[in-house]
């Protein structure tokens, strides 16, 4: 089955022929016959269709068409044989995968010709273009073009290397009849002119064009191979992404943009997603437990379970930090809004406590003192860790900046060693978070602790919702510049979206 791409390949050959036309004026191979006018008719129709003047078009000038066919033959020969998709190559031509090589649409641009040729190339490009656009029609015309050109191949070979031509024609399935029919007339016409002179010139021209054709074939082959490899790679990547999405690795906008994800990171993302689901379920349990007014003992079980649930994620983070510290540190596992407020790959304990103080009323005097002390000591610890990390960064920068050409690799090794300390800082930060939560659990009563954990979960849930909302909300609403009328209409537009937020907030009132 011929496809439009093959037509374009044929168009290349026609362009090559046109180039030869310039060099070999005066040669006449013979007059056209009816079957050979087939492609020319098509070309005429295409050029007329696109308003191009085909006057320098040798195809139209029937009187000189034989001459042009000769050049066309030559061009086709030098371009390479397109005998057929599923047939072995002629010995004259280098082997190549015909099917894929003919599929490059951009190759014709390489063969832009002089003014005479350019009109033809214009015609040819429209030919290609129209072949591309008028797809249903093109197979038919392309078949005619290809078979005619194959016939030209046969004719030319008949003139130059008759034995090979015989074998070629024998291998050409579709064009066999036509080639057999065309060969005798062409040979007859060729005997009239000064054959030897023309043959010598033809030989020289052939040799040069053969080289060029070979080079372009090789380039084309390399390009196609590269494309095939890229295609395979792309399908593999897509499969990987599909698999990851199926497993819920790609959270709502969190790591979607990040194509390269290490296995440790992917594992952690998966476990974190599962942890979030578990978290949601547990918070529902706590909420129901509070509303159902469970006894303290029963509530304690739920709350202790929630503390263990947090211990789990810290443990998972420790494992993830060992395999991919950057994934944790850059916050690619979390939503953009949370990532904004990230401190050492997670939440800042003192910020959490500040938020909780307002939500946890009523607290006893002792509890308040305990919470304020907790906030204070957490702040001091955070400050110490931040300063330690700053020193690490400074030291790393100095190491990388100071490396000369000679000991560059050595400095890199040192830098790598320093970078490995990052894991230690994340671990210390997680330890701080864990200790803070445990201390809260100690200070508060069971009911207060239950409410505290609800508030914490709610808070991060809202941050995540903010991320999603921001991603889906058009920016014009938030930029209140110039046209206030427009902004108002946009705000009205967005009201329905915002209506669900109050209910979200009211789900677990702080009471």
């Amino acid at each position, binding site marked *: 089955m011929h496809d439009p791409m093959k037509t374009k390949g044929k168009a290349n050959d026609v362009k090559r022929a046109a180039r030869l036309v310039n060099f070999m004026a005066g040669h006449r191979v013979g007059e056209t016959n009816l079957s050979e006018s087939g492609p020319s008719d098509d070309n005429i129709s295409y050029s007329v269709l696109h308003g191009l003047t085909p006057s320098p078009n040798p195809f139209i000038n029937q009187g000189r068409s034989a001459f042009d066919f000769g050049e066309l033959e030559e061009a086709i020969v030098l371009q390479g044989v397109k005998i057929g998709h599923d047939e072995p190559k002629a010995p004259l031509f280098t082997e190549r995968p015909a099917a894929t090589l003919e599929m490059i649409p951009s190759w014709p641009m390489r063969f832009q010709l002089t003014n005479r040729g350019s009109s033809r190339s214009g015609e040819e490009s429209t030919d290609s273009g129209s072949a591309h656009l008028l797809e249903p029609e093109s197979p038919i015309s392309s078949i005619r073009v290809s078979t005619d050109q194959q016939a030209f191949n046969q004719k030319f070979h008949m003139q130059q290397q008759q034995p090979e031509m015989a074998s070629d024609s024998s291998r050409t399935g579709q064009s066999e009849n036509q080639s057999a029919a065309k060969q005798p007339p062409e040979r007859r016409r060729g005997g009239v002119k000064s054959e030897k002179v023309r043959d010598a010139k033809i030989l020289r021209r052939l040799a040069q064009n053969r080289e060029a054709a070979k080079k372009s074939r090789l380039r084309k082959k390399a390009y196609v191979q590269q494309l095939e490899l890229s295609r395979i790679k792309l399908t593999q990547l897509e499969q990987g992404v599909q698999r990851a999405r199926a497993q819920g690795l790609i959270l709502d906008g969190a790591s979607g943009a990040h194509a390269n994800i290490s296995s440790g990171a992917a594992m952690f993302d998966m476990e974190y997603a599962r942890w979030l689901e578990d978290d949601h379920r547990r918070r529902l349990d706590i909420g129901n437990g509070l509303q159902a007014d469970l006894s303290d003992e029963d509530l304690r079980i739920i709350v202790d379970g929630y503390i263990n649930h947090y211990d789990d994620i810290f443990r998972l983070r420790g494992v993830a930090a060992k395999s991919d510290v950057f994934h944790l540190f850059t916050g690619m596992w979390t939503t953009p809004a949370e990532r904004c407020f990230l401190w050492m790959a997670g939440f800042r304990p003192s910020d959490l406590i500040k938020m909780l103080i307002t939500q946890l009323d009523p607290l006893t005097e002792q509890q308040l003192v305990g919470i304020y002390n907790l906030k204070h000591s957490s702040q001091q610890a955070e400050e110490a860790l931040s300063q*330690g990390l700053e020193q*690490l960064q400074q030291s790393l920068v100095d190491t990388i900046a100071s490396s000369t050409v000679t000991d560059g690799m050595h400095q890199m090794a040192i830098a790598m060693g320093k970078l490995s300390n990052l894991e230690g*800082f994340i671990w*210390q930060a997680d330890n701080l978070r864990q200790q803070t939560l445990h201390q809260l659990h100690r200070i508060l009563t069971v009911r207060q602790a239950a409410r505290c954990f609800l508030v914490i979960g709610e808070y991060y849930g809202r941050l995540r919702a903010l991320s999603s909302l921001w991603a889906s909300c058009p920016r014009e609403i938030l930029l209140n510049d110039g046209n206030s009328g427009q902004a108002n209409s946009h705000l009205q537009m967005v009201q329905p979206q915002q209506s669900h937020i109050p209910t979200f907030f009211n789900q677990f009132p702080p009471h």
Partner: protein
Amino acid sequence: MQYQAVESWGYYIPVPSSTAAGADPLERVVRLASESAVVIFSVSSCCMCHAVKRLFCGMGVNPTVYELDQDPRGREIERALMRLLGTSPAVPVVFIGGKLVGAMDRVMASHINGTLVPLLKEAGALWL
């Protein structure tokens, strides 16, 4: 052979009769630790050591810092500390009032659960 009771750890370590610097690095550690209220064994290039130093300075404590990379026998002490703590890296290690507190994680945990400040006050490193 004389034996010195090490109250912090509840066991006895042999002390050579010449109570000079002390051949045993661990013993040296103990001796150094008991000389000041807050003692930190550190390495000058270590960032976590820098963090723990900043923690104590931020609290208004003035710790005695021994930089093991600047001590001729620092490697021995480092190895001894590693044996003591069972973790790597060996530094930073904090002693308060001659008693071992531990590495950075233990220090922070004790600060969060409110036991660090009383310890410091008890050792006389912190007033108010």
